[in-house]
């Protein structure tokens, strides 16, 4: 049972998932033989997009001109970020001393659902979608560079954990549910001053894999992912111990630095996906009518005809994409009754997710033997500067946490985005 406790102690610090920035330290009872934990994370965040705007966009309501103008004023000309994500999963650690004929290894099984919609866009793209082009007649609208990536996948993984080296690695089978990526490296919309023509100069690639549907059972791609976690305790000399000689100076652990990679892998979208490569200039000057009085020209504005003439024909070919892998490095100081106040700091980056690198730092506070909390400041990611908080409860059989990376956004219309991350761990 001691080994079980070690295993649980080893891995419980990051229970939850890679989306949370907070590190929990848990007290594990040595009688546990199995640990089951689960998490759920949901967020949306857009730099410049207030909650008042996003609430109406996501939950319904009329977005009036005033709100659009206020929102647009806060956007950058280029590189505005927006993401909406949801993920949940469950993981089960099994204690064993016979895996690989080595008592140092245990294993865990995990199942996850991950959905991430991310984008990077220009202010003009926002304007043309929400306000149109009627007030930009005679001007260029730089709709690019703009990028959008939507990926939904599920994974089923097997993890091996080394009991004494504080590391874990695993491999997961990936079922790709759907994928849509748009990369508009250049997209310029020009409306002639006399409205005689509209032109769109674009260099855009589109990938779409959803032929088998877009529900959770859809199988549009297959892949794999690796995850790795290594935690290294930070120790300092214990100068308060007077009984030891200089050669055998005692050390004490003041915290842990953890490096984590998750979802490092790829998916082959191979169920008849469509790809579009557009590098051209479209120009639409309306219908040229020989004789306005000829009723044979009556069907002037047929959306199908128009779209058929403008949209390129898709090419059906399989393609690979990288998963939105997460890289985390975090330091968490150790809290004790004597030292109830500590620090936390870290950095995080997610590839293929249109996000900026994120750094954060804050304090850990031990409120009670079973209860502690963290408060941090965050720079980067999908926002600019936000404040986060986590509350962690830990008892003999249950640990639980609730955290938020955007406290102002969670409660205020003036905030930018919402984020909530919940986790539960049960020990048996």
């Amino acid at each position, binding site marked *: 049972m001691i080994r079980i406790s070690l295993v649980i102690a080893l891995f419980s610090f990051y229970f939850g998932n890679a989306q949370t920035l907070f590190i929990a330290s848990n007290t594990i009872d040595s009688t546990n033989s199995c640990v089951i934990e689960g998490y759920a994370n949901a967020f949306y965040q857009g730099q410049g997009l207030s909650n008042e705007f996003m609430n109406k966009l*996501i*939950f319904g309501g009329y977005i009036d001109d005033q709100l659009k103008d206020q929102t647009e004023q806060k956007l950058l000309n280029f590189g505005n970020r927006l993401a909406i994500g949801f993920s949940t999963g469950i993981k089960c650690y099994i204690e064993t001393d016979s895996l690989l004929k080595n008592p140092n290894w245990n294993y865990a099984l995990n199942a996850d659902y991950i959905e991430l919609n991310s984008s990077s866009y220009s202010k003009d793209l926002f304007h043309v979608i929400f306000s149109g*082009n009627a007030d930009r007649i005679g001007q260029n609208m730089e709709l690019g560079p703009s990028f959008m990536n939507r990926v939904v996948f599920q994974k089923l993984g097997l993890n091996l954990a080394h009991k004494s080296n504080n590391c874990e690695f695993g491999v997961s089978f990936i079922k790709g549910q759907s994928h849509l990526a748009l990369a508009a490296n250049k997209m310029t919309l020009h409306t002639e001053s006399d*409205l005689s023509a509209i032109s769109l100069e674009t260099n855009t690639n589109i990938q779409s894999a959803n032929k088998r549907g877009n529900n959770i059972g859809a199988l549009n791609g297959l892949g794999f992912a690796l995850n790795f976690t290594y935690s290294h305790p930070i120790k300092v000399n214990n100068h308060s111990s007077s009984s030891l000689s200089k050669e055998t100076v005692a050390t004490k652990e003041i915290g842990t630095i953890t490096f984590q990679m998750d979802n490092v892998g790829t998916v082959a979208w191979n169920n008849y996906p469509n790809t579009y490569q557009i590098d051209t200039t479209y120009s639409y000057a309306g219908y040229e009518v020989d004789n306005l009085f000829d009723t044979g020209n009556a069907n002037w504005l047929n959306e199908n005809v128009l779209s058929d003439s403008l949209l390129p024909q898709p090419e059906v070919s399989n393609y690979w994409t990288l998963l939105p892998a997460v890289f985390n490095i975090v330091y968490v100081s150790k809290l004790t009754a004597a030292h109830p106040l500590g620090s936390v700091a870290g950095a995080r980056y997610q590839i293929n997710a249109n996000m900026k690198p994120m750094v954060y730092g804050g304090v850990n506070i031990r409120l009670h033997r079973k209860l502690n909390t963290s408060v941090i400041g965050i720079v980067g990611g999908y926002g600019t500067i936000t404040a986060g908080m986590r509350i962690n409860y830990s008892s003999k059989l249950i640990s639980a946490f609730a955290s938020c990376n955007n406290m102002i956004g969670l409660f205020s219309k003036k905030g930018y985005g919402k984020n909530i991350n919940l986790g539960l761990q049960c020990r048996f």
Partner: protein
Amino acid sequence: MSRFLCLSFSTLLLFYGCRKESTTWDADYALPLIHTKLDIGNLLGDTNLLVNADSSLILSIQREIYRIDVDSFFETPDTTISQVHKLPTSATLSISPGYTFISETEESTYNIAGAELRYFKLKGGKLNYELISYVTGPTIDSIILPCATKGGIEFSEVIYVPTSDGITPAIAVGSVDLNDYEFDLTGTNSLKYNTITSKASSTIDPAFSSNVTISQADSIRINVSFEDISPARALGYFGHELIEIPLDTVAIPFMDNIISGSLDIDQVQLDVTIKSGLGVDMQVNIEQLNSLNTSSMVALNHSTIGAPINLTRPTRTGWTVASEIHTESFSNSTSNLDEFLENLPKELSYSAQLQINPFGDVNSHGDFFNYEYPLLANINLEVPLCFAANNLTLQDTLNIEIEEDTTNIQNGSIIINATNNFPLSAEIKVFVLDENGLFTDPISTSTLIDPAVLNLANEVISSSTSQVILTVNKDQITRLIQTKQLLLNVVFNTANLPNMIKIMDWHNIDLNLNVILNYQHTIN
């Protein structure tokens, strides 16, 4: 675990289950719709225009206004000719199979609307027959018309009539197509008119097994009638008929759209041409020709109106006819034609008389007719497009069928950028029906297309640019889709009134129709 699931589900609800209404926003999109260039040919039709050496235009309208249906001259009576054939003797005879017991030739003379025809050829028509037999054995009967031939072969129809019991007759009916049959109507002595020679015979069916006893009571009745007779050619005397063309009106559809204003036109020439291929002498009397507007009528004054016009008969070589053509010309100098047209007639009214062979049968039954050479009247109106229009107002109801889904369009504007080379202005007003079904709801907010710039000689030296804007809101779009109707009202004024301007073949107007739509995006 259940607590975990509850938490997860709550999170889902937090993001996706809280939607209470659709997300909507409005955006204004501007895009080009139509580009077109209109010249006068688009408006009046290229085939109706003549170009002078100086590029000025003449509106030339040629129309057939009257065509006489010559079939009416030769209308055959709608009667049935009935002939009864019986044994020439009062004795009762036993007739053996194969024996012809009736063979008779007869002549029938028809009354053809006062005409005395010697010959005609048909391009359509049927001969209907009915044989009613009381003979107590089957007979084979024949109807032969020696006067009617087709390709040199005389008309002959053989009919099988079954056995009668002597009380109830046996009946056989049928019809024969008379297309392309030629008829000699002069009878057996070649001196008669309108006369058809026929021959009927009855023979006991040779295949019958026994003799048939026949008396005079066992008659055979043959009823013959003609149907849908359509002559292709005819010879003879066509009569002395006076054809009255009573006062009638003919609408001029396009002019019906002019509701007010005045038009001052320059020289006008109207030629009325009567082309006759009918081989008769004729006298035509145009009694009156009037220009009718809603509030006024102008009668055409000319020396030929009310006076008889004699048309001599055409000549022919074989059946090729050299039609006789007679033209009466009307102009500003010989009539009040400009006043007649400036009245902007919505209708023309007219009455006339047509006298066939006014001097009788002066050609000894030498009248002829070939349907390929009809009698008709044409007009040729030539109006130089040199005029002055003063608030000339055209109004028309346009039927609009909008099949596209317009649910998300809140309002919209159609912006018409016009580059005008015509020396006349146009003020365009468009209305949709209001709640009471009246065209009182205007959708045009900027309405005037300016005329081109003219020099002192009233010639176009440069174009003008103007903008017409039509704006519709959601309510008007809904009504437009429901009623499918628009009222278009256009007021034309020529530049430099009251001077007249000339329309040239290079005058045109360039139109760019653009649209600005307020579109409501909806995400459910």
